[in-house]
């Protein structure tokens, strides 16, 4: 029997980026906020001291910061006619655990989505005609212009290093000319650029593109954010993605919010407390509490006036399904919303091998690179191409980590003296161009509860049914071809274009940008939350993070997650608290 605890104003499930933002904003507004995190407490000096933060074996290969599949995982299949099996090793994506969540181990590539991304159905249909019946792509219910102030707020919280391309409609030289208009420039100038991306920039310019320094959550200089928290300049050590930053140089909840939040008396954090379900009253229209379990197996019921699901995208959806909140999606009838519109991203790359150019890959930072945006979203005419959407191309210098990085030309054996020779020859002299492509949502890509496999608590595992569509393969091949053209213009010895062929596989690492399953939108029949990330069915329940994306775009999602969170919490403060109830009438 769960022990019932005294009620709080706000309970947060999970304690990564979105929960930290919600907690900071709502404690500042005077509410009592409690965060429940299944993992451990972490802070920069204790857990990521520069004397050991760069331990590749511990963090990359032994996956120190990630969810352990033995405790929590999902089952996977490509299509509905297959039987899903549990993912027993993390591969394709890396959900985190612990305070800070994936905000600890991200690279820091921080983008805004395009204005057209938020109106993906109406815009594409107006320009190219009706979308295929299999696509469940839809508009977000919120526009870029409405989100702009919140993008700005997140960028200034994080101290993003970059160069604006469009300030209030005026195109800025050297920035991304395709981005939506922004109110002001980034808070910090771009990182110091290194050789590989500089070569890419020259070749991109030569081939008629407009390269720009990618926006990075790695500090180009010391920065104090509007909360008064200070970050230090990046030392370009090249240990960002999959690692915590010991230098206070990568934006994370720890380096931007927690120093202020943890000092507030009306905030409480309980770590190693895993939420099992959200409980509703008998009407099903009001969430009353969450039930969680601690490390000793004791169950607690925590009542709250408002509940925010702030866990990883898939976990939010899992929790909704387990709690019986919202109608589960049924791919056969197309009805139901929870689990609907799951999407991912499709990535590929082109390795560029030089003999005469020393790239020094180890001088790295997670967001250090040059990109082009000509082939993203609807920045180009898709007429006759047979797909919608796109992605950016970028030459990053994120790392030269010796266990992870072994660039070898096509045809090199996978081991042995020939392999060693090739690694030795190419380690210092190889650049890579990455493509980062959108994935649309489809009737047959979705999340539901697995009929067979159960987790450590005896609950059904989440089941992922997903494959890339023809749209995605055509788009990704198109991006890879463009990347190869620029690669050739860099005048290398040889290139190796690595297209993403065949079915989606959950095994090789691709990206942790999983989206959807609790989509936002304007119609309760096709979305779980409204434009303020408020549940249509249960108005005191909110879902944060990328599980609300109706489909994915061709950018890293963190900037958009930050903007949506700030927009939602602003609505809670200005609308909901004055009149608790649905903020949008369906």
């Amino acid at each position: 029997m769960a022990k019932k605890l005294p009620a709080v104003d706000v309970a947060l499930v999970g304690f990564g980026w979105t929960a930290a933002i919600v907690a900071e904003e709502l404690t500042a507004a005077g509410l009592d906020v409690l965060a429940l995190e299944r993992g451990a407490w972490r802070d920069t000096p204790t857990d990521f001291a520069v004397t050991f933060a760069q331990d590749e074996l511990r963090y990359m290969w032994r996956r120190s910061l990630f969810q352990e599949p033995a405790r929590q995982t999902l089952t996977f299949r490509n299509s509905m006619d297959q039987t899903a099996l549990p993912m027993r090793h993390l591969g394709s994506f890396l959900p985190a655990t612990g305070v800070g969540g994936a905000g600890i181990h991200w690279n820091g590539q921080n983008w805004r989505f395009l204005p057209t991304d938020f109106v993906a159905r109406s815009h594409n249909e107006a320009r190219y005609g009706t979308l295929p019946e299999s696509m469940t792509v839809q508009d977000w219910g919120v526009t870029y212009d409405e989100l702009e102030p919140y993008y700005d707020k997140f960028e200034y919280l994080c101290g993003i290093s970059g160069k604006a391309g469009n300030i209030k409609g005026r195109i800025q030289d050297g920035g991304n000319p395709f981005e939506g208009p922004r109110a002001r420039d980034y808070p910090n100038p771009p990182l110091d650029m290194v050789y590989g991306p500089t070569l890419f920039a020259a070749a991109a310019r030569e081939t008629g593109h407009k390269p720009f320094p990618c926006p990075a959550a790695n500090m180009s200089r010391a920065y104090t954010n509007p909360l008064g928290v200070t970050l230090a300049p990046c030392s370009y050590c090249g240990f960002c993605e999959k690692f915590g930053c010991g230098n206070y140089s990568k934006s994370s909840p720890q380096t931007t919010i927690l120093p202020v939040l943890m000092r507030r008396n009306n905030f409480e954090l309980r770590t190693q407390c895993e939420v099992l379900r959200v409980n509703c009253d008998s009407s099903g229209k009001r969430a009353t509490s969450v039930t969680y379990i601690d490390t000793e197996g004791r169950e607690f019921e925590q009542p709250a006036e408002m509940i925010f699901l702030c866990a990883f995208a898939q976990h939010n959806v899992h929790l909704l399904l387990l709690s019986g909140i919202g109608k589960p999606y049924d791919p056969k009838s197309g009805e139901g919303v929870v689990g609907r519109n799951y999407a991912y991203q499709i990535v590929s790359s082109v390795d560029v091998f030089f003999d005469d150019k020393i790239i020094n890959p180890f001088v790295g930072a997670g967001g250090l690179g040059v990109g082009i945006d000509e082939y993203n979203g609807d920045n180009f005419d898709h007429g006759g191409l047979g797909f919608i959407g796109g992605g950016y191309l970028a030459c990053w210098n994120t790392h030269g980590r010796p266990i992870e990085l072994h660039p070898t030309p096509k045809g090199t054996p996978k081991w042995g003296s020939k392999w060693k020779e090739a690694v030795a020859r190419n380690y210092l002299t190889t650049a890579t161009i990455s493509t980062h492509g959108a994935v649309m949502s489809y009737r047959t890509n979705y999340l539901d509860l697995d009929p067979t496999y159960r987790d450590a608590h005896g609950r059904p595992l989440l089941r992922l049914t997903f494959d890339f569509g023809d749209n995605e393969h055509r788009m990704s091949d198109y991006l890879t071809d463009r990347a190869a053209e620029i690669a050739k213009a860099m005048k290398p010895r040889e290139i190796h274009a690595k297209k993403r062929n065949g079915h989606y596989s959950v095994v090789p690492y691709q990206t942790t940008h999983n989206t959807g399953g609790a989509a936002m939108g304007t119609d309760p029949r096709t979305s779980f939350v409204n434009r303020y990330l408020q549940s249509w069915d249960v108005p005191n329940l909110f879902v944060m993070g990328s599980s609300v994306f109706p489909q994915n775009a061709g950018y890293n999602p963190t900037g958009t997650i930050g903007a949506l969170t700030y927009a939602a919490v602003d609505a809670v403060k200005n609308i909901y608290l004055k009149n608790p109830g649905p903020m949008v009438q369906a």
Partner: protein
Amino acid sequence: MNIAAACLFLACILGLAAEAAAADTSFARVERGRYLVTAGDCVACHTASGGKPFAGGRPIQTPFGTIFSANITPDRETGIGAWTDEEFYNALHSGVAPSGAHLYPAFPYPYFAKVTREDVQAIRAYLGTLDPVKSTPPPPDLAWPLGHRFLMSGWNGLFFDQGTFQPTAGKSDEWNRGAYLVQGLGHCGACHTPKNFAGGDETDQALQGGLVQGWFAPDITNAQRTGIGSWSADDLVEYLETGRNKHSGATGLMAEVVADSTSGLSKQDLHAIAVYLKGQEGRQAENTDPPPQKVMAAGKAIYSDSCSGCHQMNGKGVPGMFSPLAGSASAQSNDPTTLVRIVLQGTRTVPTDTRPTPATMPAYGWKLTDGQIAAVLTFVRNEWGNAAEPVEAGDVESVRRALRSSSRTAK
């Protein structure tokens, strides 16, 4: 005047008198007391780790043994609730408890003796508003014969200059206010003035830096290289108020002082303290010979690997986050104990409301040998125009040993 009017008149007079008496616990007086208790940082010593504020029991390590602070909540049995105002005044001014027992000068009554009677009464008024806590601190653990408190009367005769603060003529009101705070409640010299063999202040070296609880509390006179000579008065105010300025960040025992005391003082008082400290000439550092080239080269290599990511190759650090070492008084201090300790154990700059980021240096004790630490510190003390005596491996070893034994006794 009829009788009724006379009665009313009398009532008014009585009423006024009653109000005057009540002023002892008036808001203004209690609030003044609270501010002075903050200025005296009473909470720091009189609170045990994890204990109730002001209930005492915190171990204070002295060169002569360990003393436990007193319970100063108004509990009548175990605290100071049963003391009269006069007894309280005597404790602060003469170091004598109501029982007649002499207090040990770990309780800095030689400083508190400077505090005016009016201020002492305000402090008493504030302490009277606290929740009484029943708690008796452990007895002191001192080497023979110091367990005998009566010996303190002899100590007092030698080292204790009783007497309330007297302003110095010819100095500004602000200087005198600063002097009153520094010499009195602030008891800055308790840490920052070197001590003689018996634990008394070396008064001719006031505020020139002293060893306390395994830290070297730095020179806070205006000495150019080893003191605060390169700091402006505003730099000092910023440091005391926020725990940080462009030169340094408060760590170790000073972190507590900033958090519990100076960050709660008014800007005017902090500025007065700064003006007074800037007025202390101090002793200019002597010239030292440059260290051997070999040591500097080794130190530079270690610095480049282990230190430059934060403190930068040019030693300028990241102001407000990672202290600059070039031109740093701490780096060039005569006694390198604090420097060695920080490298061995790491440290954390105190977070405050204005500067909430807890900037931290990790421990290197497990990673660098005594010789490597000596080399890198010698480099830091003699690069970028810095100049100070080299650090020897033996210096590192003795700090390492002291830390090991203090961590054993703390358990």
